[in-house]
């Protein structure tokens, strides 16, 4: 199942950085209106990409460490992690094809 739900400061390393599959992390907050637009799009991408991609949400209010470590200063920010490193970042609410354009080149197959 591509959508792995939430990730937090504690399990970020094991869930995201040590994952064999690329992970798209959706940095969001309850008070962020555009985030609520983007999250369903990210879920749709998860369904379409199947086994080649995992997606997870990280609430920035609850998880300041990951937020600060990756220099997230605007939300929504979608960061694609592959092999423990950031390989792509999409900032701001964007339509599905714009997100896929930046994400897809990094996925297998």
């Amino acid at each position, binding site marked *: 199942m591509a959508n792995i739900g939430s990730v937090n400061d504690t399990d970020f390393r094991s869930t995201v950085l040590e994952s064999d599959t690329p992970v798209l992390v959706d940095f969001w*907050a309850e*008070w*962020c*209106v*555009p985030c609520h*637009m983007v999250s*369903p799009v990210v879920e749709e991408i998860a369904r379409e990409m199947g086994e080649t991609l995992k997606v997870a949400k990280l609430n920035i209010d609850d998880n300041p460490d990951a937020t600060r470590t990756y*220099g*997230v*200063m*605007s*939300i929504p*920010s979608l960061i694609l992690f592959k092999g423990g490193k950031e390989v792509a*970042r999409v*900032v*701001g*609410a*964007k*339509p*599905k*094809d714009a997100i896929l354009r930046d994400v897809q080149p990094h996925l297998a197959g």
Partner: protein
Amino acid sequence: MTEMRSVIVIGSGPAGFTAALYAARANLAPLVLKGLEAGGQLMLTTDVENYPGFADGILGPELMEQMEKQSERFGAQILPVHVTRVDLSSRPFGVWAGDQEWRTETLIISTGASAKWLGIPGEEKLRGRGVSACATCDGFFFRDRELVVVGGGDTAMEEATFLTKFASKVTIVHRRDEFRASPIMVDRALANPKIEVIWDTVVEEILGDDAVTGVRLRNIKADEGHELRTDGVFMAIGHTPNTALFEGQLQLQDGYAVVQEPRTFTSVEGVFAAGDVTDTIYRQAVTAAGQGCKAAIDAERFLEQQAHTS
């Protein structure tokens, strides 16, 4: 299967929802395609004090929620989809959101406007890493930091004032020697002890590798440059109308949809425009709402005429 409609409204700000409300009450069963920036620019603001009918003000998102509910109550169908293509070459017009397709007898364009960017070095690279165009969205990340706001209109005053809730200092950089903002907004900003202004100055570059570290400024009167240390740069230099969808199909002027005032007729019969997508002068929520109403009435009368001549 392609669905046929009488009225489709593209956009969901005050213009779109008011058009939908009036079209719904005229029994035209309008379809509203909300778009990615659903709710329009009022979703990016907090207190709206100048929309008439709210003596104590109302939060932007709340006002939009009310408008949406009101149009739904009378029969508007509202979809959270983003229009990717239109075909205005003949009626019924084609409208696509990805693979979904509709045909419509009339189209109301109320796609609004989005924040303008300066197009200077460092801006694109550092977007989301200290460069932003939305204070309410990103101000949160700059607690006790220093910020720069670029602009001289109401948006700049509002953004700067809002950011003082978080920032230790906000410097407004403006290319002229006076603000074009409304006097009450200017007074409020200048009275704020956390706000400073640098006049006659433009931002030439945004500095920093992984995050904003400063800006390179130029005083255009003295033709002198200097650098200012800062943690974030917020653009508030105006908006650009969202008309990329219609290029080559509608008459545009400087990107705005041209309408035959006082009507909302565009260059294509059966297509109407309302709100910031067409308004170069006023660009207020209430004028957008007023124009949305006009567009719905124009569409209704157009459909009646079509019915009588066929």
